[in-house]
C-alpha cells in the first residue's frame, strides 16, 4: 500500500497542509517532520516499479525504486531535513513552500521511471527553486532569478523536445540507458548537461547560488545539480565524452574560485568542480566508477551544504559573504569556524573525512581504466579544491586580516544543522562501509591503505605549503571587491551589446526608409484631401444637372455592356 504513494506527494501534501498551520514553531516543525517521514518511506520501499498512472495513452512510472534511485532519494531527504533545520528561523511562506515543492520535485524526478514524469518534475524543480532566489526580494535577485529561470525552463524544453524525438524513433518513453547518436538523445543529453552545469553551460549556477537567500542557497546546493548527475548516471553511464567534459569541469572552476571574492560564489565554483568528478565517474561507467559517483554525490551534498551553511551563518550575522569584507571571525564565531573547517576537510578529502572515501573511488576507477591524463587532471583538481575550498574559505572568512567584525555566534538551530552535517561527514569518513552498502553495485574497495593515506596527505600538505609560502611572500592574490567575467558575460553583455548595435543600425535604416515613405504618404494624404476633403471635388455639393449627367453616363455604359454581351 505504502509503495503506491510516491514519496514526492508527501512533500506536495505538506506544502498544502502548511497553509493550515500558523507561521511559527509548529510550521517549522512540520518542515522537519516531513523529510523524516519521507526518509523512512524511502527506506522501507521495496525494489520495483510502483504507482503507475495512465496519462494520455502513456503509462507513467511514478515510483521506480532500485539501488541507484534509492541512494539519491535518501540523501535528498537528508538534505531537505538539514536545509529546513537550518531555516528554522525563516518566517517566509514563499520560501517554506518553495523548499517543500523543490525537494519533492527532485525526489519525484529521481524515482521517475519514464521520461515524461522526469520532464514534469524537471520543470517542477526549476519553478519551485527560483522562488528561493526571488525571496531575497531585491532587484538584482529578481533579475538573477529570471536568468536562472530561463536557463532551467530552457533545459526542460530541450528535454521534452528530445523525449518527443526519442518517442517517435523508438516508441518508448522509458527512462533507461541511452546511447548518444540520434538528435533526440543528444537533446536529452544537452538538457541534463545544462542542469549539471557542464562547462560553458555552467554559469547559471554561480550566478544564482550567490544571489539566493541565506537559507535558500543551502537548499539549492543539494538538489538541482545532483538530480542532473543522477539522470546522467541513469541515462548515459559509460558515455566516453562525459570523461572529458567532467575533466574540464573539475579544472576550470578552480581558477575562478581562487580569484573570486564572494565566498558563496567560491563555493558555487567548487560545487561545479565537484560535479566534474561525478561526471567523470559516469563517463568511466564501470561499477566502481558509478559507485564512486553515487558515493561522492552523497558525501558531497552533506559537506557542500555544511560549507554553505557556515558561510550563510556569517552572512546572516554580518550582512556580507565577501572575502574582502570578512576576516578574524574565529574570535566570536568559533563553532561556525570549526564546522566550516570540518566541511573544508571533507571536501578536500582528508583521511577520516567523507570526501576521502568517496572521491578516491572515482580516481581509482579512472586510473584503472587507463585514463591517465584525466587522472592527472583530477589529481590537480583535488589539490585545487583543497586550495580554494579547504583553505581559502575558512582562512578568509575566519582568519586572515581582522575585519573588526565581532558578530555573535550563529543561532542555535544553525549550529545544530551544521553539527549534524559535520557529524555525518566525519561518520562517513570513519565508517565508509555503511555508505558503500547503499551504493548501486557490490564492490570491494578499501580506502584506508597506507599508500592512499600517505599519498593523499602528501598532496594536501604540500598544497597547504604552497599556500603558506605564497601568502607569506605576498604572491597570493588578495581578496578584492570585484566581479570576474565568466561565460555569463556573453549573454549579459556581449549579446545585448550586439543587439543594441544591430538595433541602432536597423533603426537608422528604418528611419531613413520611413522618412522617405512618410513624405510620400503626407503628399498622398494632402492630394487625397484635395480631392476627397469636404471642399474637394468629389465631396462637394454637385449641381443637380451634373448628377443627372452622371445618371445618363451610367445608363449609357450599362446599355452598351448589356448589348455587347
Amino acid at each position: 500500500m505504502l509503495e503506491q504513494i510516491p514519496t514526492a506527494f508527501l512533500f506536495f501534501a505538506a506544502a498544502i497542509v502548511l497553509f493550515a498551520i500558523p507561521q511559527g514553531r509548529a510550521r517549522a516543525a512540520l518542515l522537519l517532520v516531513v523529510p523524516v517521514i519521507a526518509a523512512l518511506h524511502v527506506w522501507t520501499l521495496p525494489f520495483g516499479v510502483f504507482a503507475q498512472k495512465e496519462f494520455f495513452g502513456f503509462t507513467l512510472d511514478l515510483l521506480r525504486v532500485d539501488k541507484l534511485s534509492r541512494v539519491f532519494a535518501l540523501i535528498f531527504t537528508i538534505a531537505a531535513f538539514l536545509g529546513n533545520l537550518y531555516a528554522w528561523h525563516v518566517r517566509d511562506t514563499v520560501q517554506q513552500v518553495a523548499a517543500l515543492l523543490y525537494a519533492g520535485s527532485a525526489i519525484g524526478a529521481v524515482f521517475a521511471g519514464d521520461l515524461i514524469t522526469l520532464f514534469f518534475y524537471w520543470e517542477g524543480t526549476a519553478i519551485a527553486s527560483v522562488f528561493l532566489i526571488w525571496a531575497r526580494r531585491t532587484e538584482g535577485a529578481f533579475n538573477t532569478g529570471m536568468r536562472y529561470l530561463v536557463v532551467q525552463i530552457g533545459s526542460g524544453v530541450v528535454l521534452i523536445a528530445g523525449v518527443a524525438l526519442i518517442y517517435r524513433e523508438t516508441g518508448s518513453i522509458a527512462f533507461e540507458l541511452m546511447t548518444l547518436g540520434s538528435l533526440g538523445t543528444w537533446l536529452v543529453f544537452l538538457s541534463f548537461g545544462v542542469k549539471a552545469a557542464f562547462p560553458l553551460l555552467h554559469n547559471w549556477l554561480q550566478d544564482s547560488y550567490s544571489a539566493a537567500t541565506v537559507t535558500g542557497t543551502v537548499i539549492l546546493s543539494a538538489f538541482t545539480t545532483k538530480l542532473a548527475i543522477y539522470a546522467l548516471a541513469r541515462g548515459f553511464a559509460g558515455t566516453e565524452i562525459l570523461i572529458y567534459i567532467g575533466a574540464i569541469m573539475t579544472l576550470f572552476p578552480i581558477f575562478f574560485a581562487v580569484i573570486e571574492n564572494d565566498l558563496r560564489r567560491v563555493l558555487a565554483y567548487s560545487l561545479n568542480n565537484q560535479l566534474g568528478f561525478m561526471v567523470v565517474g559516469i563517463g568511466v561507467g564501470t561499477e566502481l566508477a558509478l559507485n564512486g559517483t553515487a558515493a561522492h554525490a552523497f558525501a558531497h551534498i552533506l559537506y557542500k551544504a555544511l560549507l554553505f551553511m557556515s558561510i550563510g551563518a556569517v552572512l546572516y550575522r554580518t550582512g556580507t559573504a565577501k572575502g574582502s569584507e570578512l576576516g578574524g571571525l574565529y574570535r566570536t564565531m568559533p563553532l561556525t569556524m570549526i564546522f566550516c573547517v570540518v566541511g573544508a576537510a571533507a571536501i578536500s578529502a582528508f583521511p577520516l573525512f567523507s570526501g576521502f572515501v568517496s572521491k578516491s573511488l572515482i580516481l581509482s576507477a579512472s586510473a584503472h581504466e587507463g585514463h591517465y591524463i584525466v587522472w592527472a587532471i583530477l589529481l590537480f583538481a583535488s589539490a585545487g579544491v583543497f586550495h580554494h575550498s579547504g583553505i581559502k574559505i575558512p582562512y578568509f572568512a575566519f582568519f586572515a586580516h581582522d575585519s573588526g567584525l565581532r558578530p555573535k555566534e550563529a543561532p542555535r538551530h544553525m549550529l545544530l544543522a551544521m553539527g549534524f552535517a559535520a557529524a555525518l561527514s566525519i561518520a562517513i569518513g570513519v565508517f565508509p562501509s555503511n555508505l558503500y552498502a547503499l551504493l548501486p553495485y557490490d564492490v570491494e574497495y578499501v580506502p584506508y591503505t597506507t599508500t592512499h593515506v600517505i599519498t593523499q596527505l602528501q598532496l594536501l600538505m604540500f598544497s597547504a605549503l604552497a599556500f603558506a609560502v605564497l601568502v607569506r611572500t605576498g604572491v597570493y592574490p588578495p581578496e578584492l571587491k570585484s566581479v570576474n567575467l565568466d561565460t555569463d558575460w556573453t549573454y549579459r553583455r556581449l549579446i545585448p551589446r550586439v543587439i543594441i548595435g544591430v538595433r541602432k543600425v536597423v533603426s537608422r535604416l528604418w528611419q531613413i526608409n520611413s522618412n522617405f515613405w512618410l513624405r510620400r504618404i503626407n503628399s498622398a494624404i494632402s492630394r487625397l484631401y484635395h480631392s476627397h476633403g469636404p471642399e474637394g471635388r468629389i465631396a462637394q455639393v454637385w449641381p443637380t444637372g451634373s448628377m443627372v449627367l452622371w445618371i445618363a453616363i451610367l445608363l449609357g455604359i450599362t446599355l452598351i455592356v448589356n448589348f455587347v454581351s
Partner: protein
Amino acid sequence: MSVESTHVAMTLNDHLPILQVLVPLATAPLIVLIGSRRLTWSLAFIASALSFVIAILLLMQVIDGSVISYQIGGWAPPLGIEYRVDATNAFVLFLVTGISTLVLPYARESVKSEIPARHHTLFYAAFMLCLTGLLGVAITGDAFNVFVFLEISSLATYVLIAQGSYRDKRALTAAYDYLIMGTIGATFFVIGLGMLYMATGTLNMADLADRIADQGANRTVRAAFAFIVVGMGLKIAIYPLHLWLPRAYTFAPSAVTVFLAATATKVAIYVLLRFTFSIFQPAFMFEVNTLEFIILPFAILAMFAASFIAIFQSDFKRMLAYSSIAQIGYMLLGISLLTDTGLTAAIAHLFNHGITKATLFMGVGILVLRSGGSFYNRIQGMGKTMPWTSAAIVIGGLSLIGVPGTAGFISKWVLVEATIEKGWWPISILIVLSSLLAVIYVWRVIEVLYLKAPLAGTNYKEAPLTMLIPMWILALACIYFGFATDVTLTASRAAAQGLLAGSAGMM
C-alpha cells in the same frame, strides 16, 4: 400558376400579408383625420408595433424556405395582384418594421425638438406612408406594384426630409435634389417595366420570370434590365449615383435619418436582388457582365472613395452618410460575386449594417438634441458628459469597422470568405484595407468624444430614456448578432439560396 395557390381566406393568419401593408396605410389617414396631437404618436407606434408582430409571424412561417402567396381580392395572378412572402423579403420586412418600431419612441423627443408641434400629425402620417411604401415594395409579387409603392415611399420621404428645414434650411434643397434624382430613378424603373411588359405581356414577377426564361434574352429585355438596374441604383445610391444621399441624410430630421439609413436603401437593394436573381436569370451573360463590369468596380470604388471622404469630414452625421455609401459598396460587392456565399454576405450585411447605422444615427441625433449640431467641434468631449450615448456610439462604431464580436464582423467575414471562395483574393485584401479606413474615421469620432476637452461652459444632460433605450437595444443587438451568428446567417443563407434558385424559387 399552381392550383393550390387559389386563395380561400380562412383566418386572420391567412391575411397577414395584406395586413402587413394595410395597417400602416390605414393609420396614415386615421392620424390626419383624428388630428389629435396627443394621440398621433401613439397611433403611429401601435401601427408600427403591429406591423412588427406581423413581420415576425411571417418570417417564422417562411424561414424554412417555403413561400406564402396571397392573392388580393381573390383575383388569381397574373391578372390579379399577388403578395409573395419568402425568406428574403420576410427578412427585409422584419428589418423595416423592427427599425420603425424602435425609431418611433426615439422620434418622440427628437421630433419635438426639431419640428414645430403643429406639423407633428402630418409628420407621423408621412412616416406611416413611408413605412407603407417600403413594406409594400418588399412584400408585393407584382412588378408594377413595386413601382407604385416605391413612389408612395419616395414621396413620403421627400416630405420627411424637407421637415429638417426647421433646423437647417438646406434641408429643402436636399429634399429637392432627392426629389429630382428619385423621380429620374423611378422613371427609369418604370421604363424598364414597360419594356418588360412589352416583351412578355405580364407584370407578375413569377410570370415574368417564367416568360423571360422561355424566350431568352433579346434587346428589349436587355434594355429593360439596364434601365431597372440604373433606376434602382439611384435609390440604392450606388456610387456615383449617390450624390443625393449625403445631403439628404445630413439635413433630414434625426429620426428620419435613422429610419431611412437603416431601411430605405436596404429595401432598394432588395428590389435589385429580386429583379436580378428572381425575374432575370443570373445565367444571362448580359447580367453577369453588368454585375462584373459595372456594379463590381463601382462597389469597390465606393468602398474607398466614400471612406476617404468620410475620413476628411468634420460633421459626424455627414461622415456617417458617406460611410453608408461605402457600406453599400460591400453589399453590392457581395451581390456581384453571384455566388451563394456572396449573396449570403450581402443579405447579412444588409441587416447588420441596418442595425449598426441605426445605432450610430440615433447617437448623432441625441448629440444634436443636446448640443444643437453634429460638427466635431460642437460635440467634442461629450463622451464625458453623456457616457451612455457615447458608449453606444462606440459599440456602433466598432460594428461599423467590423471588430470581432460585433455584427459588422460577421457579414464582412462572410464576404471575405466569399471572395476567397471565388478565388478573387485581391478583392479580399481590398475589403480588409477599406475596413482600415473605417478604423480611421471611427477613431476620429472616438477621439473627438473622449480625448478632447468639452466646450467651455457646456454641461449636457444625458439623453432621455425614450431615446437611450431604443439606441441601446440596437447597440446590444450589434453585439448579440456578433455572437449569435446563426440567426442572421441562417436567414441570409435561406434567402440567398431562394434567390439563386431563380424563377424556381418563385414557385
